[in-house]
């Protein structure tokens, strides 16, 4: 029996597939990719943890005991806790509007959704300073009413919301377009109201894609540096987020503390990646919108 298999495999093995590369080409391509990943991804990641633990676990955990570091962690969590739910609502609304309705200016809206991706984060931060800052457009009015936006939590949240806006909307638009409106229409003919239709039909159909978008949005919200750096004012213990605190510590040659905080961000990235892969593996078809239906 094994002879028969060999006989059949023999001539086929000699014929190279149409798109098949030579063995050597393949090896070189894989080596280049692995070397690139190792040099630019794995090595820096390893360096973060090695540097953080250079003076031992005691120094590593001492870095988190610092009040400024704790304030930075708290602020980052607070900003993400406000920005992500806001973008969840905005993202679902924008995706709903563009995927299920036809209206004038729809293509403009889809283009604008991508704007935060194409604008440098520093510029978007600067815009908020120009609008809400002390010398900005609404600056005097805001000061008169004792509203602090720039160099305070609202400014940081605003900048983060802007930068992370596209993640959820971008994830949902193709998914909702692919699913169409037939199921919603069916729910309407069966007597369900608009909100009930959204809760019972639309939301369950997009939940995995939504979760995926929230995950990416959250990772970016916690890691954002540029836009936040412009609006925060770098007041330690008050308006410094984790990425900003890392930079300051590094500039003070407090390497262990800088890398300890950085390792926390790196862990967040790794957990996000893990969850993202799990989601893709388990609900890949639901996220891509090609449900078997």
């Amino acid at each position: 029996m094994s002879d028969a298999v060999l006989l059949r495999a023999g001539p086929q093995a000699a014929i190279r597939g149409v798109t098949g590369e030579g063995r050597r080409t393949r090896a070189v391509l894989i080596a280049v990719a692995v070397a690139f990943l190792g040099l630019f991804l794995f090595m820096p990641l390893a360096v973060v943890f090695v540097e953080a633990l250079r003076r031992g676990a005691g120094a590593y955990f001492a870095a988190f005991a610092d009040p400024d570091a704790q304030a930075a962690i708290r602020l980052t969590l607070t900003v993400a806790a406000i920005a992500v739910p806001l973008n969840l609502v905005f993202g679902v609304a924008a995706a709903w509007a563009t995927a299920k309705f036809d209206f004038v200016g729809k293509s403009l809206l889809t283009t604008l959704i991508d704007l935060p991706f194409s604008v440098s984060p520093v510029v978007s931060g600067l815009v908020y300073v120009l609008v809400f800052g002390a010398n900005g457009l609404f600056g005097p009015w805001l000061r008169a009413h004792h509203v602090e936006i720039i160099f305070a939590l609202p400014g940081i949240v605003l900048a983060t919301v802007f930068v992370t806006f596209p993640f959820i909307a971008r994830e949902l638009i193709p998914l909702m377009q692919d699913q169409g409106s037939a199921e919603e229409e069916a729910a309407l003919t069966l007597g369900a109201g608009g909100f009930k239709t959204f809760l019972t039909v639309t939301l369950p159909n997009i939940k995995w894609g939504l979760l995926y978008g929230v995950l990416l949005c959250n990772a970016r919200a916690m890691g954002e540096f540029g836009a936040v750096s412009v609006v925060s004012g770098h007041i330690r213990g008050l308006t410094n987020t984790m990425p900003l605190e890392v930079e300051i510590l590094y500039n003070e040659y407090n390497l262990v503390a800088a890398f300890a905080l950085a390792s926390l961000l790196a862990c967040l990235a790794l957990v996000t990646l893990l969850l993202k892969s799990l989601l893709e593996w388990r609900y890949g078809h639901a996220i891509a919108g090609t449900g078997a239906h």
Partner: protein
Amino acid sequence: MVTPLPEQAPTDRGAGSDIRVAAIAKGFGNYPALHGVDLDIARGELVALLGPSGSGKTTLLRIIAGLERPDSGTVMFDGEDATGLRVQDRRVGLVFQHYALFRHMTVYGNVAYGLRVRARRRRPPRAVIRERVRSLLDLVQLAGFEDRYPAQLSGGQRQRVALARALAIEPKVLLLDEPFGALDAKVRKDLRRWLRDFHRASGLTTIFVTHDQDEAMEIADRVAVLNEGRIEQVGSPDDLYERPASPFVMSFIGETVAVEVVTRNGVARIGGQRINTALDGIGDGPSLLYLRPGEISITAPGPGTLAGRVGAIRRTAAGYRVEVAIDGLAAAIDVLAEKVEAKPGDRIGLALARTRLFPGELRSAS
């Protein structure tokens, strides 16, 4: 075989609503989908909206359902103006072309949906819902499939779940959009028969959209033929076949042959040969004679027949398809015959059992 639905007492005059559509117009952007459509549907009637794609039949169905708002015109249910009524309040059972089942719900969840989403004071108790879903699944012969998801069902089963879901709300009218379009031939035949039986038993007013004339003729009491946003003719299948009101209806329903006719001084001629036909108000000039292949017979040449020559003869399942070149005409026509004695090249005469003359000219050789 089909259990009538509770709370709907079928009467001699059928169940559900009568529907009157008056002067409905609808455009999408610059594209007019319907121009001034009138249609009356009696209580308990089974009506097909038949037409090619783009004829506006689905738009008309969606307007009746309330999913589309007409630019002008009215939709009446039981003599009451329903034009401004929200789709939720119309109580229409709509079966979508691709079923539109809720993919994240089981068969049970799908069928129960319309009852579960009702406001609390109108919502039936859980036990009543369960009983109702069970009887509906019996009705569509899907008992035991309660826990399946739509992705685990075949096309025909999904279609029947969609029907059960639409019927769960005790609709005043059942609307079906291309109900059998996506199914294979065998399943389609079974479902057609099922729908006819169901309609006979329930008497529910039913409107379905199709582009398949066989389907429309086979199932419907009456057929409305749509073309380019207008209703060309409404009638029983016999009416449409025997007395088509326009060349479009004639050629859309059943196979036809169009032959160019020239009339002068009240005498119609084909390729110079005189024919006997009622002129029906057709004046002098060119017009078109529509024939059905089965209504032409091959005889010996002689008076009262059209002289021609036999071309190719092909076998079909039922008999033979004979190509005949009529003297004086450029294009040959097809004649269906059970038996053919003539051979290719023979000179023969054609006897026309029926002729229908419509104004117009032949645009292209078809």
